[in-house]
């Protein structure tokens, strides 16, 4: 029964995997998240776009890892023990996202999501699909296809 409830409610609720980049909180829709991995060795890829940190070995397959802070134009911070790689999948393409820490899986009521982009800058505005308000916190929801996708166009 519980699962039915969740499904019925999902029309108005969004489950997100929330994570930190510097002091801000961001989120991906849980439907796109495959798994969360601790930091492993990342191999630099020459000539790759600047925001691609490199590639990792995920159980035998080679996966690109995007430095999300660099992608969103945020300032770099060193790795910490909390640094994680969030593996997301969009359109059959799996990509790792380097984040500072994964905080929680959160259900956000769609009423609490502000679609306005007023607060975002023009440069990174396309990456943001909305801002979720949870208690007193703000979770910036990211548009995965844009975060991954641009490289394909280049």
């Amino acid at each position, binding site marked *: 029964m519980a699962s039915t409830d969740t499904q019925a409610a999902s029309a108005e609720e969004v489950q997100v995997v929330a994570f930190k980049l510097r002091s801000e909180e961001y989120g991906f829709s849980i439907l796109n998240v495959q798994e969360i991995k601790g930091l492993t060795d990342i191999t630099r*890829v020459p000539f790759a776009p600047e925001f691609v940190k490199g590639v990792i070995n995920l159980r035998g397959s*080679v996966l690109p890892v995007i430095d999300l802070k660099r992608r969103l134009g945020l300032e770099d911070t060193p790795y910490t023990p909390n640094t994680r790689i969030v593996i997301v999948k969009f359109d059959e393409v799996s990509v790792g996202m380097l984040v500072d820490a994964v905080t929680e899986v959160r259900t956000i009521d769609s009423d609490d999501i502000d679609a306005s982009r007023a607060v975002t800058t023009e440069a990174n505005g396309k990456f943001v699909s909305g801002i979720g308000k949870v208690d007193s916190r703000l979770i910036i929801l990211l548009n995965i296809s844009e975060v991954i996708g641009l490289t394909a166009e280049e």
Partner: protein
Amino acid sequence: METNQYMEMFLDESREHLQSLNDGLLGLENNPEDLSVLNEIFRNAHTLKGMSATMGYTKTAELTHDMENLLDMLRKEQLKVSEEIIDVIFKCVDSLQEMIENIGNGDGEDLVDVSDLVRQVNAIAKGESAAAAPAEEAPAAAATAEAANSIQLNDTDKKVIKEALGAGMLAFSVHVELSDSCLLKSARSYMVMNALDELGDVIKSVPSGEDLEQEKFEHSFEVCVVTDKDCKAVEEAVGAISEITKVVATEIKLDVPAAAAPVAAAAPAAAPAPAAAPAPIANTPAKAPAKAAPPKKVADKPKHAAGQSVRVDIEKLDTLMNLVGELVTNKVRLEQIGMTHRLTELTETLEQMDRVTTDLQSVVMKVRMVPVSQVFNRFPRMVRDLAKELNKDINLTIEGEETELDRTVIDEIGDPLMHLLRNSLDHGVEHPDEREAKGKPRTGEVGLIARHEGNNVVIMVTDDGSGINADKIRNKAVEKGMVTRDEADALPDADAVRLIFLPGFSTAEVITDVSGRGVGMDVVRSKIESLGGHVDVTTKIDEGSVFKIKLPLTLAIIQAMLVKVQDEMYAIPLGSIDSTINITPNDIKTVQNKEVIVLRGQIIPIVRLGEVLSVPKGHEQEEEDIFVVVVHVGDHKTGIVVDNLIGQQEIVIKTLGKLLSGLKMLAGATVLGDGHVAMILDVSALM
């Protein structure tokens, strides 16, 4: 037999042809007027005849020949397709199938009696009804088949049995089948013999006791035993032994010939019957020589069983490959653990595992390999058709079609080859009249040759046509604005001809304007290069051209040299490595500000990998020794300066995925034994 190495192929192909014969006949039955089906059947029969004649199986060839005659008459409408005729042909096919299987089993083709069938076929061909031909072959065939595995008794044996029977004992022929999974066949057969010995006297076994001990039999054998127990007791005694799937004891009655049948019936499961055809026990005439028991022969030789191939989705093989790769990676990790903690036991076990994984890897690799004949097969037909269309006499020679290539390469190579062949036919080989005027034979020779060359497979498309006129190519390239006049003139002929591979060179008008080639040559090149290969052309006016395609054996796994630059590891495909050398900084000279070295009198430009790939500088490495990996693409050589050579290793190529596709200088990535990812260099981009 020298032809032995072709046996497997012969059998496979024969089965294939027989299968299509069967299908064709079925089609013909439903649609007797369809000439195309008839032609197809005829072709199959003809090929079969040729193959069996080549292999020296005259009887098979003869029967096929007679059948072919019949088919030919049908084809020429000298005879009408009737049910009777189709039936007879079906019977021929069945007999042929039997013969082929016998050949596969290591028995000769002679075991199937086809004389009646041949008579029938010839009778029909002469316009008589097959019914007029004497003796149906079916019962005969059945008899020979059923008699298989039964025991051939000689005079002495019979005497013993007779005596035993006289003493009120019974004689049994016991047919024993072991389970397929039985590993200790000799032990089981020994137990059977023991059990039977306890019941009475074992007179004879087929195969002989010695052969049973040496496991020289498949899964069944026959024992002849005299005992005072009844049939059931014998079966129970043997059946109590484990791993025995079937026991049939049949009473032997020497004086009643009809008793032969049950003995034969004891082996119904032994299909396809080796058809050794010894006379059934009961009516064995005294003269039947007890020559080496035929069923034993079957056991001696490897069976070429039918239906051994399976079609598998290539993706499944890829997955398998990935899993094997992971297994190897994990094994290496375990090895490291064993080393650091000095666990001898673990290390020893891992050595065993190492052997298994290596075998596993090579098996998976082999599974992916298919002979190029799969692609080549379709060309003779195409060449014939095209030659007709172009009004040219062309003789296509195919060589080395057994050369094996990775499945993925095979799938991709067809179109480029077709392009090249079409070009050779269209633009290479001249019209017969023109050839005659040049003093060449009217028939043009076009060759399609595959062979191994080191770690590569080379496929060549050759022709003895007009060759490519370098000047015309130069002009065309200048006209197209691809090179300047000066550049074009500076090019030696060999290089000028290579201009045809440049994109944009080949357009529709080029085909007609230039007497050389040009149809989609850039497409050919990019296709080949996407497969990790390389295409080149050499040509001589009026003598012909040779297009040479060099392909890696496989796309999945290659031999590579691992090199280190600062802290980064890179893999260079061994196929493109010429040599590795050790130089000192003094050996590096400059020519027009470009660094070069002199190797064996040749000036070779060098690139510093660290700079080219902008590897972050961790530590300055000003050593006396500089490692240079000399790589080549075609005739061009370049030296790659690296910090360290790690060693040669087999690597599994992984793509970098959509996100990172098309990065220059990288051909992919690989996961190393320690789980790290290393980039594979695209050598041609470094030049």
